[in-house]
């Protein structure tokens, strides 16, 4: 998946609103974007909805892509923003329900079902904060450089490094706890 091919496709989309070229860009990167969001959300269908929204936003904002970083880095930035916005909306929704005195049984039931289905990685991701999770996934699952993660999250490179270090520490500690428990 070469950068120059991505840039060529982006140029075709921006100059001629070529939907076929954009379709090709989606085909090339959808797996990374969907995996990233699935690891953040822990909910496959929600992640896929967010991925669709992210690509729709990317279509609208493609003229702002400077081409200095990788396209996937830029795309994950949009996906991460979409995720954060949806998280904020659902928090607000839960607050409104709570204020209205509604029972959130349904939500807790869904959460329990999901918790039963989670794999090992999800258990490790669960010990991380939202920010740490996003950065760790960008780094280890998507292979983004610290600079690219810094661009995607609008954080200084030094902070990205320290978040990764903290995340690694947390996961290592979780491993140790697990070893003690089973040993």
């Amino acid at each position, binding site marked *: 998946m070469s950068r120059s091919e991505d840039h060529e496709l982006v140029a075709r989309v921006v100059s001629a*609103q070529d*939907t*076929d070229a*954009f*379709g090709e860009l*989606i*085909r090339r990167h*959808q*797996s990374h974007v*969907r*995996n990233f969001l*699935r*690891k953040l959300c822990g909910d496959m269908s929600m992640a*896929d909805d967010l*991925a*669709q929204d992210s*690509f*729709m936003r990317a*279509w609208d904002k493609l003229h702002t892509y400077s081409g200095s970083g990788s396209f996937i880095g830029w795309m994950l930035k949009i996906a991460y923003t979409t995720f954060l916005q949806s998280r904020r909306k659902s928090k607000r929704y839960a607050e409104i329900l709570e204020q209205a005195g509604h029972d959130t049984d349904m939500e807790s039931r869904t959460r329990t079902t999901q918790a039963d289905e989670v794999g*090992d*990685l999800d258990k*490790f991701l669960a010990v991380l904060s939202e920010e740490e999770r996003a950065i*760790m*996934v960008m780094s*280890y*699952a998507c292979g983004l450089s610290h600079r690219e993660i810094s661009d995607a999250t609008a954080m200084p490179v030094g902070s990205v490094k320290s978040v990764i270090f903290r995340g*690694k520490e947390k*996961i*290592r500690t979780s491993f140790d706890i697990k070893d003690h428990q089973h040993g």
Partner: protein
Amino acid sequence: MTSKIINMAERMKDEQDRLLESMFESTPIADNGFSSKIVSRIRRKLWMRRITLPAAVLLGGVIAYQPLVALLKGTYQLFVSLPGDLVPSLSDSLPSMQLIVTGALILAVTLISLNMLED
């Protein structure tokens, strides 16, 4: 001694990184119509954007047609009722008002269609 410790630390770090990479590794997700779904959403959006302005102009034209004709008719009659020596032969040279309004509407629709074709 110190360099040995540093090398060991780096090797340990690498091992941990490799472990994390293998943990985070995920199987590629098949497209299965995902991209074509988004592309068709975009095409629909583009089509809607292109059709909205001409549709609004057409609708506005249809709604405004009768009041506009009445207004122009009134203005025309005002001109016609003026004394002949004040506006000499004006009434003879003016085309019918309905023709003017229809012509203006056709011109507007043609310009918009040309603009759309250019896009």
